[in-house]
C-alpha cells in the first residue's frame, strides 16, 4: 500500500508526542524518526513510556499533543484501522490469534472482504503464498494455529500485518517466548524485510538483541527520549546507563558455591495438566544447601509445571519429591504444609499468583503466612503487627514508596517483586523456589534481586531458579538443568556452560546423558 512516491521520507516521524494519564506524564514531548528500510530499536525500563508511545502509533491511544507523519504525510491515527490503512502493523507480545482457526483464517480475520468467505480466502491464499516467497516466511496455511510452535505463531502475526499492507512493523518484546535459535531466525527474517524496504520498530529490554539486530536505537526514560544513537556507535553498558540513569552492574558478582547437604531430591517426577497432556515426563535432580540450580528452557517446556509440582500446587502423576527426608508427594502435603517445612516459593506469574492485585501491600505481605501466630491477636488479625512487618520488609528490601497501605497494583513491577521476595525470604526457608524472578522488573531492581538471591545462597539456603532468560541463568546458577518438552536434557556445570550449548539443549538436542 505504497501511498507516497517519496522514498526518502521517513517511514515514521513522531513530533512532540505528549500523553498524560491523570497525574502520570507517560510521554513527554517524544520525537522519533524511523528511516525507511531500517530496524529501529526502542528500549527503556518498564514504565518508561515505550508501550504508550507504540499504542499511540497503532491508534490505540490518542496523543494529547504532537504530530505523526507517515512517509512524509501527516496522519491522524485514531484507531488501529487507521494505523493499518497508513501501513503500520503491530505484533503484540501476547499474540492476537484465534487458536482453533487455521493460519489462513487467522490472517483473514478482520479483512474478510465481503459477506462470503470463499472469495476472500482464495485471495488471501494467493497473497500469502506471494508473501511467503518474497520474504521466506513459510507457514503451513491450513494448519490450526494452536498446533504450531510459538515461533511459527509469531510468524503468522507478522504475515497478518504484511498481508494488510504494513510498510512499518512494530514488534513488542518479540523474543520473550522464543529460544535463542528461534530469536536468531526472527532477526534474520527481519533483516530480509529490511532488505525489501520495510521498516521495523523493535521494542525490547534485551540489550543483546538491540546490539545484534538494529540499525539505530532510541532510549526512553520516564516518558522522554534520553538518547538516539546509531547502534554501531554504542555499547550495551552505555545503553543500560542511559536507560537507568546511572551506572549498573550487568553481571552479578558472586564467589564460588559451597554446596552442603542435599535438601531437596526429585526423582522420576511426571506431571500432567488438566487436559491430561504430559507436561513433565521424567525429571530427577537434587538440590543442595548453598547452591543455586538453574532450570533453563524455552517457555512452555515443563519448567512451570515442575516448579508448581514441587511447590504443591499440582499433583504429580508419578515420582517422588523429598525435602529433608520427607516425601512430600506420598504424604500428600499441600502448599501450606510444605511452606511450614521450609519451602518458600516466588511464583513465575506474579500478578496471577504471587499477589492479589486489589489488596494493599501489607495484606500481600502476609499472603501464605496469614495464619502465622505472629499475625493473630485474640482470634483476629493483628493489623498493627501486619503493618509493622510490612514496613520492615519494605525498608530491608528497598521497596518504594514504603507505604504498607498502598495498593500493590500501584507499585512498579520491580517493587512488587521485591516485596514478594521479601515475604518469601523473610520466612526463613530452607529451600527457595524462584520462577522468573525478574520478569517485568526494571534493570535497577534486577540488580537488587540478583544480589539478594546470591546472598541467600551464601547463607546456606538452596535455591531452584527457573528462568527463560538465559543471561539470568548464566549469571546466577551454579549448576544448570535444561528442559525441553518435559524432559531434563542434561545438567551442565556453570563453568562448562555456554549460550550455544544451552541453546542446543533447549532446542531438544541432547549433548550428554542426564547426570
Amino acid at each position: 500500500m505504497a501511498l507516497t512516491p517519496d522514498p526518502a521520507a521517513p517511514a515514521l516521524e513522531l513530533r512532540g508526542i505528549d500523553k498524560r494519564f491523570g497525574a502520570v506524564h507517560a510521554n513527554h514531548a517524544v520525537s522519533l524518526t524511523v528511516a525507511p528500510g531500517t530496524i529501529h530499536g526502542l528500549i527503556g525500563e518498564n514504565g518508561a513510556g515505550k508501550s504508550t508511545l507504540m499504542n499511540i502509533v497503532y491508534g490505540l491511544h490518542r496523543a494529547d499533543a504532537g504530530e505523526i507523519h507517515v512517509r512524509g504525510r501527516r496522519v491522524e491515527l485514531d484507531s488501529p484501522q487507521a494505523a493499518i490503512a497508513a501501513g503500520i502493523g503491530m505484533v503484540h507480545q501476547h499474540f492476537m490469534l484465534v487458536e482453533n482457526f487455521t493460519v489462513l483464517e487467522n490472517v483473514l480475520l478482520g479483512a474478510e472482504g465481503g459477506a462470503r468467505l470463499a472469495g476472500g480466502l482464495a485471495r488471501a491464499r494467493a497473497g500469502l503464498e506471494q508473501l511467503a516467497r518474497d520474504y521466506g516466511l513459510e507457514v503451513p496455511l491450513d494448519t490450526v494455529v494452536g498446533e504450531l510452535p510459538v515461533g511459527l505463531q509469531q510468524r503468522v502475526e507478522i504475515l497478518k500485518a504484511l498481508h494488510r499492507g504494513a510498510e512499518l512493523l512494530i514488534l513488542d518484546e518479540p523474543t520473550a517466548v522464543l529460544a535463542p535459535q528461534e530469536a536468531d531466525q526472527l532477526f534474520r527474517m527481519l533483516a530480509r524485510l529490511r532488505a525489501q524496504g520495510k521498516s521495523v520498530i523493535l521494542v525490547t529490554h534485551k540489550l543483546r538483541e538491540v546490539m545484534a539486530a538494529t540499525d539505530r536505537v532510541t532510549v526512553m526514560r520516564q516518558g522522554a527520549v534520553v538518547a538516539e544513537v546509531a547502534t554501531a556507535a554504542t555499547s550495551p553498558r552505555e545503553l543500560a546507563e542511559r536507560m537507568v540513569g546511572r551506572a549498573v552492574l550487568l553481571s552479578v558478582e558472586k564467589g564460588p558455591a559451597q554446596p552442603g547437604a542435599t535438601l531437596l531430591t526429585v526423582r522420576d517426577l511426571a506431571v500432567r495438566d488438566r487436559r491430561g497432556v504430559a507436561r513433565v515426563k521424567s525429571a530427577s535432580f537434587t538440590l543442595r544447601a548453598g547452591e543455586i540450580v538453574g532450570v533453563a528452557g524455552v517457555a512452555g517446556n515443563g519448567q512451570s509445571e515442575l516448579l508448581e509440582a514441587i511447590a504443591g500446587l499440582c499433583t504429580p502423576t508419578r515420582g517422588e519429591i523429598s525435602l529433608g527426608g520427607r516425601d512430600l508427594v506420598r504424604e500428600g502435603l499441600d502448599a501450606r504444609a510444605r511452606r511450614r517445612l521450609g519451602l518458600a516459593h516466588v511464583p513465575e506469574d506474579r500478578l496471577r499468583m504471587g499477589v492479589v492485585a486489589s489488596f494493599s501491600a501489607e495484606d500481600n505481605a502476609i499472603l501464605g503466612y496469614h495464619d502465622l501466630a505472629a499475625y493473630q491477636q485474640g482470634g483476629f488479625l493483628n493489623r498493627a503487627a501486619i503493618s509493622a512487618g510490612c514496613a520492615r520488609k519494605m525498608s530491608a528490601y528497598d521497596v518504594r514508596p514504603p507505604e504498607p497501605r498502598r495498593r500493590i497494583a500501584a507499585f512498579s513491577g520491580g517493587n512488587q517483586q521485591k516485596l514478594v521476595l521479601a515475604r518469601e525470604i523473610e520466612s526463613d526457608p530452607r529451600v527457595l523456589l524462584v520462577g522468573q524472578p525478574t520478569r517485568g522488573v526494571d534493570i535497577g531492581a534486577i540488580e537488587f534481586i540478583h544480589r539478594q538471591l546470591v546472598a541467600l545462597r551464601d547463607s546456606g539456603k538452596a535455591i531452584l531458579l527457573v528462568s527463560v532468560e538465559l543471561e539470568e541463568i548464566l549469571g546466577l546458577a551454579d549448576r544448570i538443568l535444561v528442559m525441553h518438552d518435559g524432559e531434563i536434557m542434561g545438567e551442565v556445570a556453570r563453568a562448562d556452560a555456554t549460550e550455544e550449548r544451552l541453546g542446543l539443549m533447549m532446542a531438544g538436542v541432547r549433548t550428554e546423558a542426564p547426570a
Partner: protein
Amino acid sequence: MSPAAKLPRWAEFGLLPAVNLLAALLLSGAIIRLIGESPWAALRLMADGAFGSQEAIGYTLFYATSFIFTGLGVAVAYHAGLFNIGAEGQAYIGGLGTGLVCLALGHWPFWAVLPLAVLAGAAGGAAWAFLPAWLQARRGSHIVITTIMFNFIASALMTWLLVNVLIRPGQQSPESREFAPNAFMPGLHTLLGRIGIPFAATPLNLAFLLALAASVLVWLFVWRTRWGYALRVAGINPAAARYAGIRPERVTIGAMLLSGALAGSLGLNELMGSQHRILLDFPGGAGFVGIAVALMGRNHPVGILLASVLFGALVQGGSQLSFDMPHVNRDMVVVIQGLVILFCGALENVFRTPLAALLGRGKPEGSNR
C-alpha cells in the same frame, strides 16, 4: 480496553450512588407524569410514607431488617467470588427452622427460645446453601444455576409441608398455627417503652438490632480474621489462594454456609417479629432484594445498611403512594423499585466516566491527588 475511571472515595461511595438514585427518580417521575399524576406530589407522598412519622419509620426499618440479613448473605458469598442467587430459598428454609423451634418450644421462656431460634434459622439456611456449595466445589456445577434451582425446590418443599404437614387442623389456608406468645420477638416500641422512650407500635422488633449486630460481625469476620482474609483471597484470585495454601473448595463451602445462615435469619424478623406463624412465601422476594442491596451497598455492611433502608423506604413509601394516588397501583411501585435497581445495580457505572471527567477537569493541571 481502558479500565473503569477512578473516582475519589467520597464520589465513589457517596456521589455516584446519589447520582444513580437521582436518575432513577427522574425517570420514575417522568413515568408518573405520563400517567397524569404529579411527580412532585408522588415523591412527597413516598418520602412522607417512608419517613414522615414514627409509624412510617418503624415500617421502613422493619422491611429493611429483612434486606439487611439477605444482603449480608449475598455479600459474604460475593467476597468469596460466588454469586448466591439462592438467598430467597435459604431464607425460606431457614425460616422453617426458626418457625419449628417456635412451634415446638413456644412454652419455654423467650430468652431460652431466642438462641435456639437463631441457631435453627442459621442452620436451615446453611443447610440449603450446602448442597449447591458442595456441587460447586466438588463437581464444578455453577452456583448461580444451582442456587436458582434450589429456590424452586425450597418453594415446592415448603408448599408441600404447609399444605400437608404443618397446616393447622381444620383450616383451609396453608399456614401453621400461631406461635405461643413467648416465641414472639419483642417489638422495638415495647423495648423502647421499657426504658422510657415512647415509640409508635409497628412490626419493627428486636431482630433489627440482631441485624445490626450481624453487620458488625460480618465486617469483623471478613476484614479482621484470617478466615475472612482467606475468603477474600480465594474470591479475588483463586490461583493466588492455592499458592497461599488456601483451599478454594473449602472457602466455597464455608462462605456459602455463612451466606445461607445469614439469609436464613430472615425468619427472626418476618416470622417471630411479625407473622407469628409459618406461612406460604413469607420471604416475599427479600432474597432477591438482598442481591440488589448487596450490589448497591458495594458488599460492605455500611453500604448494605444504607441500601436496605432505601429499599425498605421504597416498599413502605410505595405502598403509601399506591394507597393515596388512584392512578399509581402496586405494579407502578414495582416499576419504580425496578428502576432503582436498574440504575444502582445494572447501570451503576453509566455515570462513572462523565463524573470522573467532571471532577478531573476541576483540578489544576498535573495536580497529584
